């Protein structure tokens, strides 16, 4: 397909027409079979994988998501609109798409949630055949369109092929499917990413290697998990294709595929259906920002190559802002973060780990890509960069503050992810060699520790059946390995030397001071101090303090959950002792975009301001730490050490009643809330709720025209004809 040619109209109209025809025909047919008029009653489909697959396919096609014809046609339409300078129409088309997605997927949401006293749909395979045929034709025509666009390659469609293969094997036992998934993703991912270079290669290691490592934990469940493994294969492999993308079309295709598959995966969580809709809408909002940005870039440069983004000239500021906004939504930037807690907390426990440790890095990758292409080749990149830096650091601060006040362990970790990604965004915004090395270092580190933390949480949730931290306590006795993993991850996150976190903070601080971003550096100090609060809270309320009587007999988390955690710990330790191993490749990758390099004096990293000799620091701390330990051990040999239970405590000359009453955990930072809680009252949530409210009211107002009265409609047609006549020259003066 050559863009800008007259011959495109058939592709656009034909694509949209076929898409609409098949999807609508299928949906009407399905509605006829089901005989339910109210969308709420479509809950009859809940728990019926095949019906849901067909229904979901039709909806996804209708919204214009990949790989269906509507996706390609819509993309071309938007590009042509941009080429013609019809920018307001792009906004209209995308806003319309978003609203369409909202009501269509709300419908899907109803179909996913089984209700009590619901009679399941009585539809036989034979009856379903025509609908399934429509769905199948959509896939086939979608592929045909991809071929037309020159994107029908194996590399592009590998995620979907892998997903299909696993779907066909969905009847196998859970562990076997998980094993197949690991093989498919490892092999496919390796094939897709082995020839990547520079920054893409580093992200390849995190997204594919990290994805496989953390997916190992899916082995801890042996239930069927219908649809989980195929979708996960699509998600992880689409991350790999994302890294390979050379054109904005290929990038957008993988991005949307990632969005749909991660959305569907979240719906599989226990209470994942509601938050998944919020996730989908924000993700689509993000995707449409990207599409608008790409379209604008195409209009200016006439090319859809990603490498051409840099030559957008005067439009660079707008293109950068649109693309950055898209990626910020995906990383959970402040203000557009409200999808984060729901999605991360309600997804399946092992999938939460993937979402936070791996999938969130796709947004970071996008931001790096855009900043690399746009920010460097121009001088105007500076001011938006400063704004981006502020957004990043405010996200870090408020993410940490919000994490402090959560009772739910997964929500705490979700807000923590949001905050930690804020540091990375600020690092990218620095647009300096050191800043980018810091950002990539923090990215790797976040993957390492957040993978551990979410998997550890999965183990705790599995054993206790609780997510609220104050309902746990004292679990160090039952789950010592999980505790050690959590503790090391938290030290690596906190920035306390000698683990990896310190390097990240040190690099970022130095880069900020170099750049003269003093206020942001101060904010970094504050937010990392605030982060201590929730980090300690996780360790204390879950693992320390008093254990609940009911938890006395809990076992350690399953080994298969612990293995990935300890592999990650091994990597953390390696990079802690010898960060050069990580820093040199990062620096080399960055230097192809931003000139400069790291200055090493032996093993000490030097910056303009300071120096950091990690192996030596590690050694000194080891000696300093061992000395009192050895003394204490020697002393304790001479005295009688009596091991007592947690509840055996001195308590103002009284014995407390029960351990449950004695665990200080609920509302742990009440005093902090009194002082600073006003900062984190849910303003963003209120804003988005108001947006929904306004959309509903507006829609309700518009509805008065559709009153079902034939005469009114006749009047509309008449008015329309008169207007058409007048516009077309009937009105001359």
């Amino acid at each position, binding site marked *: 397909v050559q863009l800008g040619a007259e011959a495109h109209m058939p592709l656009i109209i034909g694509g949209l027409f076929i898409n609409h025809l098949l999807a609508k025909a299928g949906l009407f047919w399905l509605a006829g079979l089901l005989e339910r008029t109210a969308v709420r009653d479509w809950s009859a489909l809940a728990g019926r994988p095949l019906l849901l697959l067909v229904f979901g396919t039709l909806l996804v096609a209708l919204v214009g998501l990949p790989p269906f014809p509507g996706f390609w046609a819509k993309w071309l339409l938007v590009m042509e609109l941009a080429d013609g300078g019809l920018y307001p129409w792009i906004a209209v088309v995308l806003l319309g798409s978003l609203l369409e997605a909202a009501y269509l997927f709300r419908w899907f949401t109803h179909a996913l949630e089984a209700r009590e006293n619901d009679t399941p749909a009585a539809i036989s395979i034979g009856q379903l055949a025509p609908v399934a045929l429509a769905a199948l034709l959509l896939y086939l025509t979608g592929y045909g369109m991809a071929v037309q666009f020159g994107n029908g390659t194996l590399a592009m469609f590998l995620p979907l092929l892998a997903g299909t293969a696993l779907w066909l094997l969905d009847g196998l036992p859970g562990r076997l499917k998980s094993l197949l998934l690991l093989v498919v993703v490892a092999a496919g991912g390796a094939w897709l990413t082995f020839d990547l270079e520079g920054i893409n290669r580093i992200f390849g290691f995190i997204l594919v290697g990290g994805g496989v490592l953390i997916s190992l934990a899916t082995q801890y469940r042996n239930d069927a998990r219908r649809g989980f493994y195929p979708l996960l294969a699509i998600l992880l492999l689409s991350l790999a294709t994302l890294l390979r993308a050379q054109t904005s079309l290929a990038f957008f295709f993988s991005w949307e595929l990632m969005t749909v598959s991660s959305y569907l995966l979240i719906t599989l969580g226990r209470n994942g259906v509601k938050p998944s809709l919020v996730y989908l809408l924000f993700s689509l909002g993000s995707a449409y920002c990207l599409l608008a940005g790409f379209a604008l870039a195409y209009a200016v440069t006439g090319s859809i190559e990603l490498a051409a983004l840099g030559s957008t000239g005067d439009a660079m500021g707008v293109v950068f802002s649109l693309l950055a906004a898209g990626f910020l939504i995906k990383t959970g930037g402040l203000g557009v973060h409200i999808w984060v807690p729901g999605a991360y907390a309600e997804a399946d426990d092992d999938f939460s780990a993937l979402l936070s440790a791996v999938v969130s890095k796709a947004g970071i990758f996008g931001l790096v890509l855009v900043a690399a292409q746009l920010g460097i080749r121009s001088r105007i990149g500076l001011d938006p960069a400063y704004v981006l830096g502020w957004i990043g650091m405010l996200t870090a601060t408020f993410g940490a503050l919000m994490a402090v006040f959560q009772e739910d362990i997964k929500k705490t970790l979700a807000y923590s992810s949001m905050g930690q990604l804020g540091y990375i965004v600020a690092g990218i915004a620095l647009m300096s060699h050191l800043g980018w090395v810091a950002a990539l270092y923090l990215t790797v580190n976040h993957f390492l520790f957040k993978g551990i933390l979410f998997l550890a949480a999965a183990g705790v949730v599995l054993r206790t059946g609780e997510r609220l931290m104050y309902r746990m306590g*004292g679990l*160090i006795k039952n789950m010592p390995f999980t505790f050690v993993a959590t*503790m090391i991850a938290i*030290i690596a996150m906190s920035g*306390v*030397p000698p683990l990896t976190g*310190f390097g990240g*903070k*040190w690099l970022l*601080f*130095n880069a900020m*001071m170099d750049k003269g971003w*003093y*206020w942001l*550096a*101060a904010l970094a*100090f*504050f937010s990392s101090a*605030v982060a*201590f*609060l929730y980090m*300690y809270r996780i*360790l*204390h309320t879950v693992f*320390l*303090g008093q254990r609940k009587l009911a938890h006395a007999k809990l076992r350690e988390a399953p080994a298969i959950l612990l293995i990935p955690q300890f592999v990650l710990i091994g990597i953390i330790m390696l990079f802690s002792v010898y960060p050069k191993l990580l820093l040199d490749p990062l620096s080399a990758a960055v230097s192809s975009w931003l000139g400069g390099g790291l200055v090493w004096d032996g093993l000490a990293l030097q910056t*303009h*301001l*300071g*120096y*950091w000799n990690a192996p*030596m*620091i590690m050694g*000194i*701390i080891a000696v*300093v*730490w061992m000395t*009192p330990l050895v003394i*204490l051990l020697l*002393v*304790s040999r001479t*005295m*009688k*050490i*009596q*091991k007592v239970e*947690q509840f055996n*405590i*001195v308590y*103002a000359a009284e014995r407390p009643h029960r351990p449950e009453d*004695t*665990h*200080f*955990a609920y509302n*742990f*930072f009440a*005093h*902090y809330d009194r*002082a*600073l809680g006003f900062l984190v009252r849910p303003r963003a949530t209120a804003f988005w709720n108001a947006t929904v409210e306004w959309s509903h009211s507006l829609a309700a107002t518009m509805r008065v025209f559709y009153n079902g009265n034939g005469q009114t409609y006749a009047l509309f047609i008449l008015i329309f004809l008169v207007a058409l006549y007048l516009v077309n020259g009937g009105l001359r003066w």
Partner: protein
Amino acid sequence: VIAEWVGRFGDFALTFLIVAVYGLLVGAFIERTIAKVQGRIGIPYRQPFINILKTFVKRTAVSHGIMFFLGPVFRLAGGIGTLAFIPVIYGSETFANFSFAGDLFLVIYFMFFGQLGMALGAGESGHPYSAIGIARGLSQMTAYEVPFALAVISIVIQYDTLSITEIVAAQQGGWQHWTLFTNWVATLAAMLAFLGMTGYSPFDIFLAPQEIPIGPPTEFHSAFLSMLQTNRALFGATKLILFMNLFFGGATGWIELMIKTLAIYMVAVVVGVAFPRFRVDQSIRFFFKIPTLIGIISIIYVQMMFTS
């Protein structure tokens, strides 16, 4: 190489001894001073040493578990390590410690090492008072960290380095070169943060000596407690040395060090004797008002004065 490192650790052991003994003596001095203000006689100078020795040789101990056991180890290692990364006497190779391994940023972050480890140990003791003390202490820490961070950034801009040795070097050649006089705004912000850091009244609620027996260390006793007592003296003195280096021109000899650090300490003591205790939320609000404002002004000030 091994001999060289053994020598370095030997030198550092000497520093450690001097600073620990000095810290204990200063502690006794302050106790006596406060006692005099309140019309009491106070403890003899040997009392802190006797306390440590007595607790250290207790014959029995109760342990709540491995983290409980390691808590005091982390705490003391945190104190020793912080001292290890600070050059104590300017111009002295012997007392420069291991400051060549890391800079001021390392010292600031390493201060958390002992606090975090101790918090974990106290947490495993299972005592609610420990957890309450830690929750309060951490909250207060986030607040005084702000003026302190602003002051540190201000002097890093001023001296254009993160190396503590170079910051001290830049203040040599007379009292008028001290940060106290060249950048008094930053010093003021840092000293206000220092009040919170020392844990004297009005910012002593996390220890709360009356209501909550002794805060986080509640359950610790015998050899555990002796380590914590040692660390309190050592860590206190270490923080004084850090402040002396950053704001008061450092020291070229031990006598100068002792005079200066005692003078810095007296600020916290005088304020502590004069003012009653804040609640945690009050102290957080306090630090976010005037001290933070002064910290912000210190950065603007230093940008006007020292950068072109």
